[in-house]
Structures are given as structure tokens and as C-alpha cells.
């Protein structure tokens, strides 16, 4: 125990250590436990009959042929859910969503009926055998047309309601109008401006497409009156509360378990009709019911991402100093608003749209609109619409730079919030915690030889025989993660705190549980690292669990990169409660006052006397064996952490592309990503999060899109067309970092996992547009696939 300090510290494998993952052993041997691995006695299978059309009345559902198939146990429709008042369900956005279509269907692939059978193959046969008669209605696909006077009424269930969950509705297809900032002040900035620029842009509808789709095993035990449901949920405690409210079963008799989840990416935050139907079917049949959706169902009917039609405006001086920002957005939310957001923020944290820049006057407005499409909006590493916000401001700064013929790195430097301005209050009221943007920008520009790249680009532009166009993309973004302070943020009324409970065992190992739930971000490893450093116990023997509502403390789940900011803080605080008690025990054991003790890695020692100490392991034993008089035995603590603010990580991303003039194919030559998420818990894990997020960004910017034809048929909703890059397409990533800790966070750590997605997408667009900027192109809408870029080459008259 007297090994050198460094060895003792290293043995903990705590904060800052790129320790290998505890999760891996089971996953590399096929011993993970994902929802579809679960088998229960008597378990049956549910499959869903879905709408073939986008908008239609349901005239009749014929079940008989399905019920005649041996092995088919039941076919449930909205009529079976009505007595339970479950044919509609509440959403996180304060709207309602049809569980099974009642009088009409609102989008193609909507849930219409469910078939329960003894085997999944028979359930699929049953789905084929159900026939539904429809009377088609005109589909509304374009959100701008949805708001026209004579547009078809989509939501007949809301007839006469001029007030929604987020204020006045001025049209039957209008969901909400949400504003932030100071419009009058922004208008003044624009009327007084030397220069103004304006740009329309569309952030296309895409899908998070986790490799494991959504599913559940619902098991109602009629003897005990208890419901257990294993499900792909990123917020199992919230689900338990919602299920209790809807079913009338006490929360103490509902157990929701998120087991291992094969990626979430925001797709697994909402409650989907499939879960509700499986639970109802299990209650009706008194046996476990499994539901696992196909890929096509996942892409077509579960939470999509983006679909923001944005108009940005910047006011500035001729010297490039931004004086004002105005933004207008038409948000396509699909048929029901089930956009996952804190209750008071129907457009999420979109008002982070002033970005990394000191903009004195700013205003934004978002209008949500119903269309005949699946619900969603917030998903896919968006941090509650921060993807859209960062895209908007970064595109606009490029547009302004181009208008002023100013370098895009220089204009950013000119407008950055300076290091000494933090904590900085933005025109939209966010208080950015910390940042050093210029330092990070300089590091990236040097690493990539930005000046050299511009020289090369100029030479290429001067050479008519160059077979490629060269583009340089640059983005300097500020994220907002860690929702959030309960005075601002709640999910269906529950404040967005999170929690941790740590119990140290007599022999010095520990079990810890949190209210978050990993879907691959390695919480079992990194949470143990935080505790290891706080308590001086090796992370190896600190067992971390999440996802079981019967054992883990109540938390709000994992999304919005909130785990490190909120649960990470709760972990440190719970550890510190244990640490404080341990100090009292140590003082008692060493027969000194607490003031005479100092903490050193894994032990309390008497100041100035190296030989007199008690390790945390010694103290754990004493806590059970012979606690000091008047002190409770045992050594454990719980902490529920209500964050004082969000965390604001940032990044500088640079991308170089070469576009083939003949084919429109874009090759990513280089992508350099610097992220600063404050104190780094496990650099290896962060790097993995960055690689994954950049790859998503590449996919979104360069190829992904869900489109609809005029009849409302969803297009490209399988992996036949929906672009998921393989090893071959995916660029190689270069990563870098600086460390600017969050001053309000117990360990100075900020969230990071969504940064690479948020930041990379506008970087790709910036690079592709930059390749055309000398031809007068200010913006190109995503995706930048070969066909679309080729069209731009044609339009710009580029000869190959």
C-alpha cells in the first residue's frame, strides 16, 4: 500500500484514464442482453398492420381471415383500445398521437391494427390476412401548402381548438408559434445595418436509424397485478410514470427495464404505439407479448430528425462585425406533434442559434406545422434542435463572409465571444459557461495549414484543366447540453434532474446506479471512473447499473448529451457525501480531528505523518464492522442533481473536399475535428463518440434524406436507398482537443457526444458550397450526393 503515488493513482483507472470498457466482455462473446434476446415462458408475438396510404378514412377492418389462421390469438384495433382510452396517447410535446388509427389514418405506415400470434412468422401471416378498406383523402406533404387557406384538415380530432399546448393556433394545420429574443431590437439592428444578407435553407428530414430497431417484451402478471416491460427506452423511468398515468397501475407495480440497447441516437426516447399495444395485449391475454419492428417500420414510423425550413438573416458592418440576427423557421412535425422536448420548448434549444458569436440583437421564430408524415423531429444527436441552430448560424456566417469577400476564418475570429467574456449571456438569454474559441481555432488552422490550403485552392481555380473543384469547410460551433435546470426544463412536468446512488460494500467494492441509460456510450465504464477518483476505489470493482426502474434511482434518461453534465454531476456529489462520512470514520479510527487529515488518492492520512493513514477500503470495513458512536452503519449515498445551468462544449471543425467536375462525386480529402468538452473522463471513449458522430454527419450531409411523393408515399425508407455509409465511404477522422472546464460542474466536465454530429454537418455543407463559392454560389441544400452536386455543376456551367 506504500507504492508510489503514481502507481496508486494508476491502479484506480479513474478520471482521465483511457481505460478499456467493462461492457465489452459480454458484447464480444454474444452475451449482451438486448430486447429481442429475451424469452419468457408463454411469450407470444405481436406484429402491426400498417396503413398503405398517407391520408384516408378507415371504412372497415376485416379481421376474420387473420383470426382463422392457426396460431393467431387476437387482432386488436382502435375499437379494442377505446374502452381503456388508449386509442390516443399523450406525447412529450403536449399533443396526442393515435395508438391505432381510429376514424382515419394520418400518415403512410401508421399503425392500424395489431395481430398477436404464437410465433413471429404466424403473426406476419396474420398481418397479411387483415384487410382494411380505406377512403382516400388528399395528402398534405408540403408544410407551406399545409398553411394555405383551403388546405385539407388533417387533425379533425382538434376541430375548434384554437389553443394548443404551446399557445395560439392560427390555422387547422398550425401547431405552434414560438419566439425568442427581442424582435424590435433586431429589427432596429437590421434597419441601421451597413450590410445585410438573407438565405433560405432546408435541413432535410433524416432518420437516426439505430442498428437495433425499437421493440419490447411486455409482461403483465394477472396474479400479482404487476407489469414488467423490457424495452428499447432511453428514458425508462419517464416511461414508467407515463404507463402508470395511462394504465392506472401504481408505479410501484410497474417495472420498466431498458436492457442492453443496440444504439439509440434519440430514436428511443418517445413512447411508440407498438409499446402501448404490446402492453395492452399482454394485459388482455395475461401472458408476455414481444414486439420487434422491422427496419422499414423503424425508418417509416418512428422519430425522424430535422425537417426545418429556415430563413436566416444577418446584419453587419462592412468590416464584418455582426450586429443582428433574424431567423424564421417552418417546422414540419408530421401528423402528430410528438417531438421530444422539455415541455416549455416546442422548438427545443433552437435559440442557441446565435452560436459562438457576440451578437447584440437577435430574434428567432419557429412555426410548427402538421403534415401527413410520421411524427418526430428531435432525434439523431440533435441536442434539442441544436443541429438546426448551428447549421443556420454557421451557414449564415459563411454567406456574410462571401458577401463581404472576407475570409471565413477571419470573420469568425472577428465575431467570437472572447475568452474573458464568459460566463456570457447571449441575446437569447443563454448563459454560456466557458469557452476559448480563438485558441481552438488557431490550433486547427495551424494543424491543417489553412493558408496553404487557400493557396492550393486558388491555384486549382486558376487552372481550367483541374479535374476537380476544391472546397474548404470551417465551422466553429457552441453546443448546449445537459438539460437541465428544473426552473426551465421538465419532461411532462418532471424536472430534468438526474441521480446516482452508490453503495460501498464491507470489503471495498461498490455498486452504483444512475437514472440515465447507456445505449453504447459506455456509462458502465466512465461512471465507475468518476467514482474511482472521488473515492479512491478501483473502477474495476465499481459495478454500474442503469435501466431498471425497480432498482436505479429516478432519472430522466440519456439524450441531449445530458449524462455527463447531469448524472455525472450527481455521481460526483453522491461520492462526495460518502467521502465526507469516510473522513469522519477515518478521524475516529486514527484518533485525530478531521482537520488533521488530508486526502491522498485512496486514503486519508494524518498531515505530516505518512505512516498514519486509513485507506477507503479500511474505512469501508470499519463502517460495517465498528462505526463510530452515533453514526449509522454502512457507507452509501444518493444524490439527485438539479443542474444550475447547461454545459456549453464547443468545437472547431475543418473539412477539405474535392469534387469531380465530371460526375459530381465529392471526395472528403481531410476532416479535422477539435472538440472541447472540458474535463475529459475517458479520452478513448470520447474519441469513439467523435468518430461515430462525424460519420453520422457525413451520412446526413452527403446522402441521407427521407422524401415523399405527391400522394404521401414515403420514399427510400429501407437500406436499399437510405444512406448508411460503410467502411469504404466513411472518411478517416483526425481529432484534437483543448480543455476549458465547465466552472459550475462538480468535475468540470461537459457533455460531448452530440457535438460531432451537430458540428460536422454544416462543415460538409460549408466545404461543398466553398467549392462553388467563386462561381457565386452561396448555399446548396443537403444532401450533397453526386446527382445533386452534378446538377449544381451543370447550373454553374462547370465544364469537365
Amino acid at each position: 500500500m506504500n507504492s508510489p503515488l503514481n502507481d496508486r493513482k494508476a491502479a484506480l483507472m479513474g478520471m482521465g484514464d483511457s481505460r478499456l470498457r467493462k461492457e465489452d466482455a459480454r458484447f464480444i462473446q454474444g452475451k449482451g442482453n438486448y430486447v429481442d434476446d429475451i424469452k419468457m415462458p408463454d411469450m407470444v408475438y405481436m406484429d402491426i398492420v400498417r396503413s398503405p396510404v398517407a391520408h384516408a378514412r378507415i371504412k372497415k377492418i376485416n379481421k376474420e381471415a387473420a383470426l382463422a389462421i392457426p396460431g393467431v390469438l387476437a387482432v386488436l384495433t382502435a375499437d379494442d383500445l377505446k374502452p381503456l382510452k388508449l386509442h390516443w396517447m399523450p406525447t412529450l410535446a403536449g399533443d396526442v398521437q393515435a395508438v391505432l388509427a381510429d376514424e382515419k389514418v394520418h400518415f403512410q405506415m401508421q399503425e392500424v391494427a395489431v395481430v398477436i400470434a404464437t410465433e413471429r412468422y404466424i403473426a406476419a401471416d396474420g398481418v397479411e390476412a387483415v384487410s382494411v378498406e380505406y377512403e382516400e383523402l388528399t395528402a398534405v406533404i408540403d408544410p407551406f401548402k399545409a398553411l394555405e387557406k383551403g388546405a385539407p384538415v388533417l387533425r379533425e380530432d382538434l376541430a375548434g381548438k384554437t389553443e394548443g399546448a404551446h399557445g395560439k393556433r392560427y390555422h387547422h394545420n398550425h401547431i405552434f408559434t414560438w419566439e425568442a429574443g427581442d424582435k424590435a431590437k433586431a429589427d432596429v439592428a437590421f434597419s441601421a445595418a451597413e450590410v445585410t444578407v438573407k438565405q433560405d435553407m432546408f435541413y432535410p428530414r433524416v432518420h437516426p436509424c439505430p442498428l437495433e430497431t425499437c421493440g419490447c417484451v411486455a409482461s403483465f402478471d394477472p396474479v400479482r397485478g404487476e407489469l414488467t416491460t423490457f424495452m428499447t427506452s432511453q428514458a425508462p423511468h419517464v416511461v414508467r410514470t407515463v404507463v402508470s398515468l395511462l394504465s392506472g397501475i401504481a408505479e410501484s407495480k410497474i417495472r420498466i427495464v431498458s436492457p442492453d440497447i443496440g444504439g439509440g441516437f434519440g430514436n428511443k426516447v418517445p413512447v411508440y404505439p407498438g409499446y402501448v399495444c404490446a402492453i395492452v395485449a399482454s394485459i388482455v391475454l395475461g401472458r408476455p407479448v414481444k414486439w420487434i419492428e422491422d427496419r422499414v417500420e423503424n425508418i417509416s414510423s418512428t422519430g425522424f430528425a430535422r425537417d426545418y425550413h429556415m430563413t436566416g438573416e444577418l446584419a453587419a458592418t462592412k468590416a464584418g462585425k455582426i450586429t443582428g440576427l433574424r431567423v424564421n423557421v417552418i417546422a414540419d412535425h408530421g401528423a402528430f406533434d410528438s417531438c421530444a422536448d422539455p415541455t416549455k420548448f416546442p422548438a427545443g434549444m433552437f435559440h442557441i442559434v446565435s452560436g459562438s458569436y457576440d451578437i447584440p440583437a437577435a430574434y428567432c421564430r419557429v412555426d410548427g406545422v402538421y403534415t401527413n408524415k410520421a411524427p418526430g423531429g428531435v432525434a439523431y444527436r440533435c441536442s434539442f434542435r441544436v443541429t438546426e441552430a448551428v447549421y443556420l448560424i454557421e451557414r449564415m456566417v459563411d454567406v456574410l463572409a462571401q458577401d463581404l469577400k472576407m475570409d471565413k476564418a477571419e470573420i469568425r475570429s472577428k465575431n467570437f465571444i472572447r475568452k474573458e467574456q464568459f460566463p456570457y449571456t447571449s441575446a437569447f438569454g443563454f448563459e454560456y459557461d466557458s469557452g476559448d474559441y480563438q485558441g481552438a481555432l488557431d490550433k486547427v488552422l495551424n494543424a491543417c495549414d489553412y493558408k496553404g490550403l487557400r493557396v492550393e485552392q486558388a491555384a486549382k481555380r486558376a487552372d481550367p484543366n483541374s479535374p476537380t473543384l476544391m472546397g474548404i469547410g470551417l465551422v466553429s460551433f457552441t453546443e448546449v447540453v445537459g438539460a437541465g435546470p428544473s426552473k426551465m426544463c421538465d419532461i411532462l412536468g418532471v424536472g430534468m434532474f438526474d441521480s446516482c446512488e452508490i453503495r460501498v460494500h464491507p470489503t471495498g467494492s461498490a455498486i452504483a446506479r444512475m437514472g440515465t441509460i447507456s445505449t453504447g456510450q459506455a456509462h458502465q465504464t466512465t461512471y465507475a471512473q468518476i467514482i474511482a477518483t472521488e473515492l479512491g476505489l478501483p473502477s474495476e470493482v465499481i459495478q454500474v447499473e442503469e435501466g431498471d426502474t425497480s432498482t436505479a434511482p429516478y432519472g430522466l434518461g440519456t439524450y441531449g448529451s445530458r449524462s455527463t453534465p447531469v448524472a455525472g454531476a450527481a455521481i460526483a456529489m453522491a461520492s462526495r457525501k460518502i467521502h465526507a462520512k469516510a473522513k469522519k470514520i477515518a478521524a475516529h479510527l486514527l484518533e485525530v480531528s478531521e482537520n488533521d487529515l488530508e486526502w491522498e488518492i485512496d486514503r486519508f492520512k494524518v498531515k505530516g505523518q505518512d505512516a498514519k493513514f486509513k485507506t477507503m477500503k479500511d474505512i469501508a470495513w470499519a463502517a460495517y464492522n465498528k462505526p463510530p458512536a452515533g453514526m449509522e452503519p454502512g457507507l452509501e449515498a444518493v444524490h439527485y442533481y438539479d443542474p444550475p445551468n447547461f454545459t456549453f462544449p464547443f468545437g472547431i471543425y475543418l473539412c477539405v473536399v474535392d469534387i469531380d467536375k465530371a460526375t459530381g462525386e465529392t471526395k472528403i480529402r481531410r476532416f479535422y475535428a477539435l472538440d472541447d468538452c472540458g474535463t475529459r473522463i475517458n479520452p478513448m471513449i470520447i474519441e469513439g463518440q467523435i468518430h461515430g458522430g462525424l460519420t453520422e454527419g457525413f451520412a446526413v450531409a452527403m446522402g441521407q434524406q427521407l422524401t415523399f411523393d405527391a400522394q404521401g408515399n414515403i420514399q427510400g425508407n429501407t437500406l436499399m436507398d437510405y444512406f448508411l455509409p460503410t467502411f469504404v465511404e466513411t472518411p478517416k477522422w483526425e481529432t484534437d482537443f483543448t480543455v476549458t472546464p465547465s466552472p459550475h460542474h462538480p468535475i468540470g466536465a461537459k457533455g460531448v457526444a452530440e457535438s460531432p454530429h451537430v458540428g460536422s454537418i454544416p462543415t460538409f455543407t460549408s466545404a461543398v458550397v466553398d467549392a462553388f463559392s467563386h462561381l457565386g454560389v452561396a448555399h446548396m441544400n443537403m444532401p450533397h450526393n453526386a446527382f445533386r452536386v452534378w446538377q449544381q455543376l451543370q447550373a454553374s456551367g462547370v465544364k469537365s
Partner: protein
Amino acid sequence: MAKKLITVTVNGNKIEQAVEPRTLLIHFLRENLNLTGAHIGCDTSHCGACTVDIDGQSVKSCTHLAVQCDGSEVVTVEGLADKGVLHAVQDAFYKEHGLQCGFCTPGMLVRAYRLLQDNVNPSEEQIRAGMAGNLCRCTGYQNIVKAVRHAAKTLQTAKQAVAA
């Protein structure tokens, strides 16, 4: 539907079972044999999460009928470790952080296991091309490439040790 009796060797164990002709191999492995390592990530044969090794070839088991395996030797992720010792590809995925959610991992491992038998010293490009039938949503592939290289080195070193 009439069932057909098949005999298939899975991870060295001889299995005799009656299956419906329409039963996909992936469901046979997962549902009948409880070998739930192989996963289902799509319905169009793109993702490769279901990859297993059949008679020396990487096969997407969602695109193969169980009855087609009558008489075959099948290796799944559960069969890679030998008496509790991880196979070089498993160890390398661990060491190089080649997995996050773990859902693509069994398919990736079984594919890498075959790739490194077909090409004992693949270049980065050969690894990327050779693994292109397997999709991953978490890692961005970069660390998987590192892992496959790492495994290749380990296997070569082991082979040299045996030769010496």
C-alpha cells in the same frame, strides 16, 4: 407448414432439429438454439449484423434458410473463444475500442475472423473493402479497422511462434 429434419454442426456441436422450410437461419440460431449473439439490423440484407460463418464463408444468415444448412458447419460469435480464451479478433476489438453498443459486433467479429483467414495481412483498404458488408452506427469504423489490423498482427505473431 410441414417441418423438415436437418442436421447442422454449430460451433462444433451437432444439432438435429425439425424446422419449417421458410425459417431463416438467423431465427433458427436465435430462437431455436438460443444463440442470440447474431443480430437482425435490417430487412434488405445490407447490414451484416447477422453474419455467421458457414463452411468457411461469411454468410448473412438473414438471407439463408435454415434448411439450406443441412450438413453444414456453422460458426457464430459464441464459438469464437476457445475454452474461455478470446479469439484474437475479440481481444483486438476490446483493446482498440472497436465497439460501442455492441449490436454490430458479433457480425463484425465473425466477418473479421474469416477475412483474416482469407487475407492474413490485409492493408487498410483491403480491410475496409473486406468488411464493407457490415454496417456500424456507433464507431465510425476507424477503430474497427485498427482492431482488425491488431488481430492480424496477433495471429501472425502466434503463427510465427508455432513455426519457430
